[in-house]
Each structure stands twice: as C-alpha cells, then as structure tokens.
C-alpha cells in the first residue's frame, strides 16, 4: 500500500511505485534520503553532462546517414513509419510521462493531421476533378469542407491547427472543471471511438472504412519512387529530431518544471498560485500538435490514412509502447515506439497467432516488473554500476 508515501515532497522524482525495481541503495535508518531513487538524467560531473548530447549526436548520425545506406527501400519505409509513431509517442511522453495526463485518444489528433494531408493529396491527384472514391460513392459536387484543402499552404497549416485547436478546446473544458486522471483517460478514449464511427459513417466525405488512399504525387515527386521514399524518411527523421530537442528544452524550462510539479501534486501547485489547468491544456495541445504532424508525415510514407489507424486500439498501442520504453524519459517514449513497431511487424509476420498473446503478456510483465520501462531498467543498471565503482 502506498498509504503514507504522499507525504514526501516528491516534485522532481516520479511518484514512488511500490513495485518499481528497488534502487540498490541501502536505506540508512533515519538518514536524510528525501530525494531517493536513481535520477534518470545522471549524476553531476562533466562525463554525465556530455553523455546526453553525445548520445543524441550518435543516434542522429545512425538515423540520418547509416540507416538510409544500410537498409533496402522497403525496410527504410518501415522505419519511417515507426518514426512517425515515435513522434506521437514523444507527445504522449510529454503529456503522460511529464504531465500525468493519460491520453488514450492521440489517434484522434494523428487522424486529423493525416486526413488534412490526405485531402490535399487527393485533390492534387484529381487535378480539378472529384477524388476517385467520391465518384464511386456517388458524390456529384465537391463538398464545401474539402474546398480549401486544395491549397497546400492551408492544408499544411491545418495539419497542426486542427489538432491543437481541438485539444485546446477539450483541455479547457475538461481541465478547468478539474476533471482528471482516469476520467480524462476515459473521455479521450470515448473521443477516439466516436471519431472512428463518424469517419466510417460519412462514406462520401471521408472514404469510409477504406479511408483515403491511392496517392501518386507528393509536391511534384512520384510517391512510388525509391528516391522520394528515401527523402521522406530523412524528413521524418529530421522532424522527429527537431521535435525531440524542442520537447527536451520544454521539459528543462520553468514551464517543464511546473508541468512535472502539476503531475506530482496538482493541488499544491494551485495553492502556490499557479493555474494547473493552463499548464495541462497547453501541454495537451502541444502533444496533439505533434500527433497531427506525425499523421501528416505518415500519409505519404505509408500511402493511406483510414479509421482503423486512429481508433481506440492504435491509440492504446502507442501508450503501451511509451510504457514499454519508459514513460518518465522522453527518449524512452521514442525508443518504445520504434521497438514495439518492429516487434509488431516481426511477430505478425512470423507468428501471427501468437502475437496478441505476446503483446498482452508483454504489457502485463512490463507493468508488473518494470513500470518505468526500458529507460527505467537502463537507469537502474547504470545506478548499480556507479555504486559498484564507488564501492571499489
């Protein structure tokens, strides 16, 4: 039971979990070990200060130079898809890991971005005629909603504007009323379920279950060409890198500290004179914007956006990927999305029947044994190593 643990001032460290891998730290009786637990960002010292940027640079080189050379186009396309998911995961890491808002509806924002991009590409390919699926479902005139999306600048703006506005609206309505925790999770999940039904039902407007697909031309480039796909991969990787740095800066800023404080003690933050609702709403909107960008990149990379890609299940799968990677570290969230993406592809190719069992078992194991995910395991290992070195 976590009975009296909330009396500890735990602003920086994540809330103490009873089942967390116990830090191999002999608890000194009566000692002033208030902060307790291994710090994920590493200890003081120049080595540790440089470790983060060095690791980031190394990963950037691998992603931008090695991968495009080493992987064949099909595999590179898969990686680009996982990196799109990683962008969504980054937003979830920010909202859930840092802000404590468990959002189960990121698929909604992913979908808004994706459909905005898809509508532009459809109109561009149709070249003044009606998009093919509208002809098939008997629509005679271009719906008014579609009109402005023929303009690339408008469509690209909507990729970010639509999700952000929607998240601001929902966040303002929900967080102002201090609806939080599980209630918020349930509401976002209901939103994802409702959007899927809406998209499927409006066949003539959205392409129904099939969604928007059959794209040929992407800003003058042939989408089927390997060179276009390689270029798209580089764009996705760059966008992920930039957003990662931005999120990292945000977390380090005063705003980021406030966000973590809201996660760990919303009422205390309110008593200090801050407004938690604003902090949460803004963060939720940022994470929604990231999901929108990811959706827009996903469309040319994978070639389709459909309701099945943004419902309750895909939204939850991404949250679980973040949990597997480690929700308290942004890098963990990104890593989780890529690892889970690969795992899904591999196992559904090799062992299609067993995949759901494996996935289910994996969640149960991660939540029970390593609630801080891969990043938590790595931090614990690092901690063991440094304390051993200190002992020697």
């Amino acid at each position: 039971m976590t009975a009296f643990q909330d009396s500890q001032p735990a602003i920086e460290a994540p809330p103490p979990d009873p089942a967390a891998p116990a830090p191999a730290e002999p608890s000194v009786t009566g000692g002033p070990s208030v902060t307790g637990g291994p710090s994920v960002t590493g200890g003081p010292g120049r080595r540790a200060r440089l470790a983060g940027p060095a690791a980031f640079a190394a990963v950037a080189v691998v992603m931008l130079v090695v991968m495009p050379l080493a992987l064949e186009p099909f595999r590179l396309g898969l990686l680009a898809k996982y990196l799109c998911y990683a962008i969504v995961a980054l937003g979830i890491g920010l909202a859930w890991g840092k802000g404590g808002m468990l959002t189960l509806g990121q698929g909604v924002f992913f979908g808004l971005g994706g459909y905005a991009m898809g509508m532009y590409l459809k109109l561009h390919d149709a070249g003044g005629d009606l998009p093919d699926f509208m002809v098939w479902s008997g629509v005679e005139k271009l719906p008014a909603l579609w009109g402005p999306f023929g303009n690339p600048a408008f469509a690209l703006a909507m990729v970010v504007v639509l999700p952000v506005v929607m998240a601001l609206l929902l966040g303002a309505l929900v967080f102002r009323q201090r609806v939080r925790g599980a209630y918020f999770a349930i509401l976002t999940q209901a939103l994802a379920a409702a959007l899927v039904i809406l998209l499927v039902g409006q066949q003539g407007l959205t392409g129904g279950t099939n969604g928007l697909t059959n794209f040929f031309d992407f800003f003058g480039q042939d989408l089927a060409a390997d060179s276009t796909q390689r270029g798209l991969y580089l764009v996705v990787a760059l966008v992920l890198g930039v957003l990662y740095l931005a999120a990292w800066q945000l977390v380090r800023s005063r705003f980021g500290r406030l966000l973590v404080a809201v996660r760990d003690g919303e009422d205390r933050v309110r008593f200090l004179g801050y407004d938690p609702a604003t902090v949460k709403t803004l963060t939720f909107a940022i994470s929604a914007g990231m999901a929108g960008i990811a959706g827009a990149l996903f469309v040319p990379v994978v070639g389709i956006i459909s309701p099945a890609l943004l419902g309750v299940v895909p939204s939850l799968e991404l949250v679980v990927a973040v949990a597997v990677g480690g929700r308290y570290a942004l890098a963990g969230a990104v890593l989780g999305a890529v690892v889970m993406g690969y795992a899904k592809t591999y196992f559904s190719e090799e062992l299609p029947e067993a995949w759901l069992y494996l996935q289910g078992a994996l969640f149960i194991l991660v939540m029970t044994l390593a609630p801080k995910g891969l990043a938590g395991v790595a931090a614990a290992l690092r901690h063991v190593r440094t304390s051993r070195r200190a002992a020697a």
Partner: protein
Amino acid sequence: MEGVLNQLPIGLSIGAVLLLIALGLTFTFGQMGVINMAHGEFIMAGAYTTYLLQGVGFLVALPAAFVVAGLMGLVLEWVLIRRFYGRPLDTLLLTWGVSLILQQLARDLFGAPNVQVLSPEWLRGGIGILPYNRLFIMALAVLSVVAIWAYQHRTAQGRRMRAVMQNRRLAATSGINTGRVDRLTFFIGSGLAGVAGVALTLIGPVGPALGTYYIVDAFLVVVAGGLGRLRGAVLAALGLGLLNSYAEFWTNASLAKVMVFVVIIGFLQLRPQGLFVLRTRALT
C-alpha cells in the same frame, strides 16, 4: 410518432445492458480505483457460457455466467490487480493486456466468426411494441439493482464494502479485511458483467470482440454517474441508453456517438464529478 415509441424499448434495454456492465465497473473503480479494461471480456465470457449451455436451458445460463465471469474477475484481482492499488492508470494498461489475451483465447477456442445463440421459445414475440426479450433484459437489470442495493444496505458484508469505498484506511483500522472485501467486490462486479453477456445473446450474435463494443460506453456511464454510486449508475445508464438510441434515430448512427460525447462533456461542465458525488474532505 410510432417510430419514436418503438425506439423506447430499444433505448431502455440498451440502458439496462449498460447498467449491468457499469455496475461492476463503478464499484471496482470507486472502491479500488481500478480501471478494468478486461471487464468487456467478462461480458464475452458470460455470452459464450450461454452459447455452451444452449441445450441445458436459458435460466441455467444466468447463474452459470455469473459464476464463470465472477471467478475470472476474482482470479484477475487476486493474481494481478491487488499489486496495483494506488496506480489506477497503470491498471488500465495492465488489464488491457489481459483483455487482448482473453480475446485471442476466445478466438482460438470458439473461432473468429460470430456465433448465434437461439433465444428460448418463451422470449420470442412480445406485447405491442414491447418485445419479450427486451422486457426480460430490463427486468434482469431491475433485479440486479435491487439485489445490489439489498446487499450493500442489508448485509454485514455489504456494509463493509461501503465502508471501504468511503474510507479505505479507516475501514482497515476498524478491523475490516479490505483485501477480502476487494476480492468479493471484484467477484460480484465481474459476475454482473457475465449476466450482461447473457442478456446480450438475446439481441445479437456473440463474438470474441463483443465486449469492446460496450466497454467505452459503460465507462462513460461511470463518469457521468459518479464513482461507486448506485443511483448515479442507474440514471446515467438509462440516460445514455436513451440518448444513444434517439440520437441514432433522429440523426444517423455515425453522428450519434459524437453527439453523446458532446453531451457528456457539456454535462461535466455542470457536474464535473458526475451526478452523485461521494462527499469527502480529501483533496485528490
């Protein structure tokens, strides 16, 4: 006008099914802070129990489904969930993993395609616009609510349940075995989901994904009704059932869910913690 009236039993019976599902959720959520995503699979378990017992008789299926689903809930609580108290959002992901496994298990055991359960002779037909099967579902829900109310307010065990829900620590200090109460609550709540599964066989086919169609709406009932509140769950379930069926009737199915969502968000502006709130002095 006739269409409007015809919609009434449909809305009420959907509300009744939602109520049966939400009763279990609201107690496990209110008492233990557990968000059980595998609750939908207990519905499925109840429905498949009915399918397996088709030759034996429909009325045998009711207690059987209650016990089967209840035991599944008991085992889930005992093996996994009790390690997670105080981490409600983690239980959501944990139980989702369980739900994936149970769905796949159903697919392997009974096959992926839906199966049909023949409703018993005496539930076919109806009086006027009231089909017997929908009447039966409503009666089932009414009975369950009365039984739960009696359990909570007329038995010692039920009083302990309310005590733990209101203040777990104080209940524990007063000598109540909270772990036992938790297990029992889980058994009853999951069992009711099984009963909902039996009811669902009367109005549609049974498939491995049966639970997923109802779980999101059932959670909305919990949110709108207020945690752990019997009255709240009853009103919210009926309201949501009617809202669903009338929104579908007047607009179309694809807009109905969006309307329901907007109504719920609007409702939370007025009552952020649902219809009935358990008053406490605790902050969070």
